[in-house]
């Protein structure tokens, strides 16, 4: 299933055990729990969308989850808890340990431009996996923000009476539906790039699994 898995065992054994992991275990665990929860949320969310589409298209049934609206809602409101609790753990630890500040900050436009140029000319280095380049910083911060928005706008349309202040903050019930949709779309857009890049640089995938 994972490219580079064969090489992994040999290198893991060879690596000195005192060497610090590229990604601490809490990042790896929350990352993969999040990946599963997000995929369930997206698949079931598309099925829910199909019941009352916002635009002139629907999602093919084969890529949706739940079979029908009621089933999709059950998946959506089950994975919702996983996504929220896991996300809170990740955000809390990300801030508390200083990881966000160290890894995702600062992001300057000039650095992003320089790294985009380097990437397009295949000169972007990936030697040091513990260091994110400016494009990665921007993408990761962006998807974390999208994740926060998707959860909050989701709460706003789930509880437009009990959480009506939140619903108002998102421009009312109907507007919040669009916000929720576009936050999902941003995450899907990120995912396409993100997964492609992870497969292009298999050692980064290995690091997110084994920590090294």
């Amino acid at each position, binding site marked *: 299933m994972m490219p580079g898995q064969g090489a992994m065992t040999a290198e893991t054994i060879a690596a000195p055990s005192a060497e610090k992991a590229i990604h601490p275990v809490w990042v790896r665990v929350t990352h993969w729990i999040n990946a599963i929860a997000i995929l369930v949320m997206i*698949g079931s969310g598309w099925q829910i969308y199909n019941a*009352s589409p916002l635009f002139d298209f629907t999602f093919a049934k084969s890529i949706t989850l739940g079979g029908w*609206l009621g*089933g999709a*809602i*059950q998946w959506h409101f089950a994975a919702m808890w996983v996504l929220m609790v896991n996300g809170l753990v990740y955000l809390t630890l990300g801030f508390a340990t200083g990881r966000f500040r160290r890894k995702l900050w600062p992001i300057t436009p000039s650095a992003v431009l320089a790294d985009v140029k380097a990437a397009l000319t295949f000169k972007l280095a990936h030697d040091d996996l513990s260091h994110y380049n400016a494009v990665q910083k921007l993408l990761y911060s962006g998807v974390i923000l999208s994740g926060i928005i998707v959860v909050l706008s989701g709460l706003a349309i789930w509880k*437009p009476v009990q959480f009506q202040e939140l619903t108002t903050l998102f421009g009312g*019930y109907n507007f919040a*539906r669009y916000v929720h949709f576009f936050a999902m779309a941003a995450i899907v857009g990120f995912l396409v790039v993100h997964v492609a890049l992870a497969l292009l640089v298999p050692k980064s995938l290995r690091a997110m699994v084994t920590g090294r």
Partner: protein
Amino acid sequence: MRKLIPGVDSQLLIKDAAKVMPDPMRRTFLRGAFSLGALTFLTGCDIIDSDAAEGVLRKISEFNDGAQAALFSSTKLAPVYPESAITRPFPFNAYYDEDDAPNVDGAAYKLAVGGLVDNKKSWTLDELYALPQVSQITRHVCVEGWSAIGSWQGAQLSEFLKRIGADTRAKYVWFKCAEGYTNTIDMPTAMHPQTQMTFRFDNKILPRAYGFPMKIRMPTKLGYKNPKYVVAMEVTNTDRGGYWEDQGYNWFGGQ
């Protein structure tokens, strides 16, 4: 296609019911290339068997009933809107076509009242119309995602329950409708100030499409928890489920 409400195709509204009905083959509930495929891929093994998964999902849905009951506030009111915000025409929605909606004879109508109440007398429409009337312009939110603002007039359910000597410490109120639709709601929602026995829409006698002669309007609950054509109600400690809830929609259905 002209959009009546963002996200609602007016022609599709009538057909909605068919679209959201569970697949005739209940097994497809969890199937589909996506579901098991993706989960199997991610977990790397085939641990998901659909019966077990359905059971777990049902349990979580019950957990969500509890969570929503905890979130529910008996004093928090649903937002109200000005008359200009009313959605016209207000959509008809049911699991059948508008032509097949129940045609209840108002003159012969009697609301049956039962269960844990002191006075089990039935109520004619004239008697119901004579109850103190209240009005609300609120947002009706459908589980499908669309919403519409309507104007409803009628009697407060809480006031009616007190009037008939209902045991308001009971857990549920159950409703039965002319076409066989049923619905059980929690007592706190029944006692909410905006929960209404509705006899009028937009100050005119409730049209057949919107539930003549009586609808129960709960702006704190999704559309499928707002029964139309109500012919009987019962105060009870037994959860008797409901038409959609029994098929998998969330029981609490709160907003």
